[in-house]
């Protein structure tokens, strides 16, 4: 049990990252019924820019990653999503996938295709809390992620733009009839989701201590899965799903290692999809 708790704590850290990405997917799904497969590349772009800005300090790097992430998101909206928003889901996914690949390849040209070490931004070492080892930087990342998740929920529930967002998610036509600028809401939501992806990218690069232009793909799958566990478009569900998945991954790493645990996780998910296609957490 002790060992299990230790692994669960570690899992929670990666779960927090999944949550940030899954939250973004979920926001995009709610606001425009899109799964943007360019989203994972935005994470890598945020990571690259954040790492480049690292000498100026952690806060500057964080802001840079956020700003570039949001900008990249808006670019993706105007280049691949907006021209196709009246078309089928299939075409939207394919177009954003194409855009994501382009972004990754261009990024690889700039920073190099191999994964490379990044400078330390956060304190290394561990704290011992209640008898468990907790890496300092992992705890900081977790704290930032949780604050960001809470902020997102607060904004979406309480602020005016959040209400406009939810109206758009529920029925765009009715929202428009009430004087909501649907276009503005969509741009806001993709900028917001992409900002989170950019920050998540920087934090992943810090946790792993390395930067890889193709890092998005391996994170996107768990994040999509997290969104599905929560039920597509359920934003709270996506956040919880991400944390759950991380813990599950951590605990399963006790007995089996590496790719096999990943495979079991995926297989488990396929099983969930067979049994409850509408998501585990959604209740009508």
């Amino acid at each position, binding site marked *: 049990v002790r060992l299990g708790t230790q692994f669960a704590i570690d899992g929670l850290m990666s779960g927090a990252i999944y949550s940030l990405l899954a939250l973004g997917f979920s926001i995009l799904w709610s606001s425009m019924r899109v799964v943007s497969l360019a989203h994972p590349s935005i994470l890598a772009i945020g990571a690259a820019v954040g790492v480049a800005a690292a000498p100026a300090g952690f806060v500057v790097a964080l802001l840079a990653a956020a700003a570039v992430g949001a900008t990249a998101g808006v670019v993706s909206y105007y280049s691949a999503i907006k021209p196709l928003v009246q078309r089928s889901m299939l*075409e939207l996914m394919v177009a954003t996938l194409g*855009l994501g690949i382009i972004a990754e390849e261009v990024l690889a040209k700039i920073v190099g295709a191999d994964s490379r070490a990044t400078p330390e931004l956060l304190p290394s070492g561990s704290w011992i809390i209640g008898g468990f080892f907790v890496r300092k930087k992992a705890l900081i990342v977790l704290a930032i992620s949780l604050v960001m998740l809470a902020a997102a929920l607060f904004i979406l529930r309480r602020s005016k733009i959040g209400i406009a967002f939810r109206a758009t998610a529920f029925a765009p036509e009715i929202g428009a009839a009430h004087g909501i600028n649907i276009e503005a809401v969509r741009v806001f939501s993709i900028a917001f989701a992409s900002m989170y992806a950019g920050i998540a990218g920087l934090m992943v690069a810090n946790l792993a201590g390395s930067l890889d232009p193709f890092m998005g793909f391996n994170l996107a799958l768990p994040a999509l899965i997290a969104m599905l566990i929560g039920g597509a478009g359920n934003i709270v569900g996506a956040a919880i799903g991400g944390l759950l998945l991380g813990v599950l991954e951590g605990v399963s790493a006790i007995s089996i290692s590496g790719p096999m645990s990943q495979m079991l996780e995926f297989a488990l998910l396929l099983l969930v999809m067979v049994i409850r296609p509408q998501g585990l957490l959604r209740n009508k």
Partner: protein
Amino acid sequence: MSLYWQSILSLAAINGIAAWGLSIAVRSGQLSVGHAAFAGVGAYAGGVLTRDVGLPFLLALPVGFVVGGALGLAFRALFLRLDHLLFAIATLIFGQVAAIAAGNFFIPRLGGEVGLTGLDLRISPLTAVIILGAALVIELFVLRGSAFDLRLRLGAEDADLVALSGAPPAKVQVLAFGLSTAVLGLTGVLWAHLYGTVQPGDLQFGRSFDLLVFAIVGGAYSGYGAMFGGVALSLLPYTWSVIENNRRLTLGIVLLVVVVFRRGGLFQGKPVPILDRLIGRRVSVPPAGAD
């Protein structure tokens, strides 16, 4: 012709067949981002049989077809309740699971990370082109305009329309997906005997992405468009070294441009009067809005 060009030509033809196979799923409205895995399973099955059991290569082809098809039928039937998005994600996950399983399998015969090696090289450009030609004949003279083809296209628009035509929509979807993966299983066997090896990486997303680009850019709604996409885009990198060095980037750009500016791909599947008169059927359901 040098060996180098022989293998490139064969590969292009095989990719044409594979893209056509994928197009059958795409035009029925089922986006698969894991089709390479079905080809991979066919390749492993066919490869083991020819190498270790001594099955003749020509008999391994139907084996790949059946294995790929059975797997696809089972997979689609299992995930029948998923909508487009979830199903696409399920295929993506399936591809990754299959690749990891192939790399870690406890059957030493499959070669783990290294993959299956030492297969006979049985593919000449002629073999590959003949099979591609057979696929073209099937597309134009058997599939195109058949009741099944029309129903699976209708299914992409609206399941109720399929029901009105007198066929259970779910059955049409499953059959279309199964036929699609069966073709992929067959191309897997071809692929395995072109290079003499199958690796776990061949099952992964990277290759599925290539196939998707071929099919979508060429035109999934007209099957021959997908074939053209597979052949042309496989040859393209060898025309200019700049493209060869930036293969994935080029594919990404081509994909994005075609999806945004030319709906339905290069060959959109609009009626071709001469062709239709030749075949004696007047057909085609172009994608909604392709005009």
